[in-house]
């Protein structure tokens, strides 16, 4: 099983994808996405990403602000979903502020 024996390599046949772990991660991802969306005004595109790697699934919430580059936060460590959402929203707002003006780009 991939998640429990990450160095054993894949076996023949279907490989279990740690469904409980992924479900929990997806739930956290949705919570951070939703809370960040509530903190930000219109114009910010927010999306959740799950990367299923050798060490198990990992989640990221990414925000494309109306100006500037994508900012993101990884769902790891001890931070709560509320803290992650606040940090993400603040980073996205700062990115917009830094890049607004002549380099403005339309929100997508």
């Amino acid at each position, binding site marked *: 099983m991939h998640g429990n024996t990450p160095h054993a390599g894949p076996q023949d046949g279907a490989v279990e994808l740690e*469904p409980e772990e992924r479900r929990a991660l997806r739930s956290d991802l949705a919570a951070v996405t939703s809370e960040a969306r509530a903190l930000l005004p219109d114009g910010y595109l927010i999306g959740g990403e799950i990367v299923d790697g050798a060490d198990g699934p990992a989640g990221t919430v990414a925000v494309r602000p109306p100006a500037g580059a994508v900012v993101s936060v990884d769902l790891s460590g001890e931070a709560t979903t509320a803290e992650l959402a606040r940090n993400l929203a603040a980073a996205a707002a700062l990115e917009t502020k830094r890049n607004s003006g002549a380099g403005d780009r339309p929100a997508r």
Partner: protein
Amino acid sequence: MNVIRVLAGRGAGPTALAAYDAALASVALHDYNLLGVSSVVPPDARVEPAETAPDLGPAGNRLTVVEARSTLAPGERGPACAAIGWATPRAGAGVIYEGSGTDPGTTREEVREGLEAARDLRSDRDWAGGEAGLELSTAEAHPERYVVAVALAAFGRSEPIG
């Protein structure tokens, strides 16, 4: 059809096709005939990531998908990476982009860039008020077996093939 399920799987086997079949089995899509389509999300559809597919109809039926696949031969350098990303606007049709490769970061960026270009191309829609997401599957290389990573967006339920 109003649900598009995004599924990420992986598998291994003695041949490339066997590994692909195993990867499809890991998300319960191995008994359907998959019909690939390009990447538009109908306006009335919603995109939902899922661990495995529910019962989508009888084995042998046709199932519409957008698919990303990456295959590694025995001993080949990896990991195999396959990703599906999507963006749906506040109203109107959305887009699904697929990507594959052997580097998770590069594969993810390929899909992100594709989606950005797709949104630019469809600037008549309010993307910021919609939804977006990405699922990426990886499969570690194996010295003796083929491995496959797949990511699929499965449209609705299956239909009889003939």
